[in-house]
């Protein structure tokens, strides 16, 4: 369910509360996206977009966690390799 694609907010197009919207870029292709549900999102932020609506702002710090985990695993692996 629920195709959600991360895109970068480039320009705010409308600031009416319910119809707050922005031009959002997805790898260069752009479309107007409704921002009503991400009042905190600003130009430069990435948002997850579903059927033309931003449903969530992507949090950079949390996004890093998985790569930190991968590094941790790599170290563990490395030390396991050594210890074997």
């Amino acid at each position, binding site marked *: *369910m*629920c*195709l959600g*694609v991360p*895109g970068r907010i480039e320009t705010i197009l409308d600031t009416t509360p319910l119809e707050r919207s922005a*031009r959002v*870029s*997805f*790898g*260069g*292709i*752009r*479309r107007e996206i409704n921002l009503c549900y991400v009042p905190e999102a600003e130009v430069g932020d990435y948002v997850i*977009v579903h*059927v033309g609506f931003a449903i969530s702002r992507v949090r950079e710090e949390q996004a890093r966690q998985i790569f930190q985990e991968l590094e941790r695993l790599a170290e563990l692996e490395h030390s396991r390799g050594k210890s074997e």
Partner: protein
Amino acid sequence: MPVTQDEAIRLGHGSGGVMMQHLLRDVVFPHIANQWTSQGHDSATLAIGNSKVVFTTDSFVVSPLFFPGGDIGELAVYGTVNDLAMSGARPLYLSCSLILEEGLSLSVLERVMQSMARAAAVTGVQLVTGDTKVVERGKGDGLFINTSGIGLIEHSLEIAPQRIDSGDSIILSGDVGRHGMAIMASREGLEFEMPLASDCAPLQSPVLELLAAGVEVHCLRDLTRGGLATALVELAESSGRELAVQEAAVPVTESVQGACELLGLDPFYVANEGRFVAFVPREQAALALAALAKNPLTRGSAVIGNVTEGTHAQVILQNSLGSERLLDRLPGEMLPRIC
């Protein structure tokens, strides 16, 4: 499951997938079975006098008529020129048959005719015969163009799916999916801003250059409806060979990728109008790439896979993660997805 008589045509019957395959197999080809139509090629090679003449046809029904990077007139010339080129023929003569819908603006027609003339000049073909029909409003879509083409084979190679051989390298002439996405971006309700234009382009010069370079081409196929994946599946079936393709080797521009993510589409199935795959002996792949690299239209050529020793007529896609899956035809029309 055979197509049944009480069915009606749906859009999926025209989109290059399984529905279309079955329509042609069950309703069209049984009535026109002969040595030419059985070849699974997009043109027929005819012996006329001492000459090998190639003959092909296509109707162009693109909407909108003008799109980023081209228009229906250019497409109608290049599309048929490309089909001729895919037999290794030099395109010579085109027919031009117009179906105009009542209400079409004459200035639109004028622009399209200019565009056809320009495309004909670029490709060195002559538009030698034509036809013009007008249909009532609501019984057409502005403008349909049919072009049929005649080309001449000036070499002794046989270029056909049946010549595909195990060990052949598969060369793709550039990035995929731009034409289809440029068209889709202008659809009602989608309306994306596309930074990139259709890949619509004439392919006869790169092909003739490939031949001139001495590459012993086994098979050529331009990518149109159904995109790269469908072209490969068709060729696997026509040749009875197994093809292996590396997903990572296939160029897809970031904006095509972005649009595909957004709509839930697969760029491997999105239409092109200026790309082809060439099957060449592995030892000639470098020679072929060198020849293609000289032409701006095919500068992005790359080997994307090869013909295996496998005995199943199928296409194996090795994706970027290293896992494999089977490519097949789409069932019918490619529809934007919500999930």
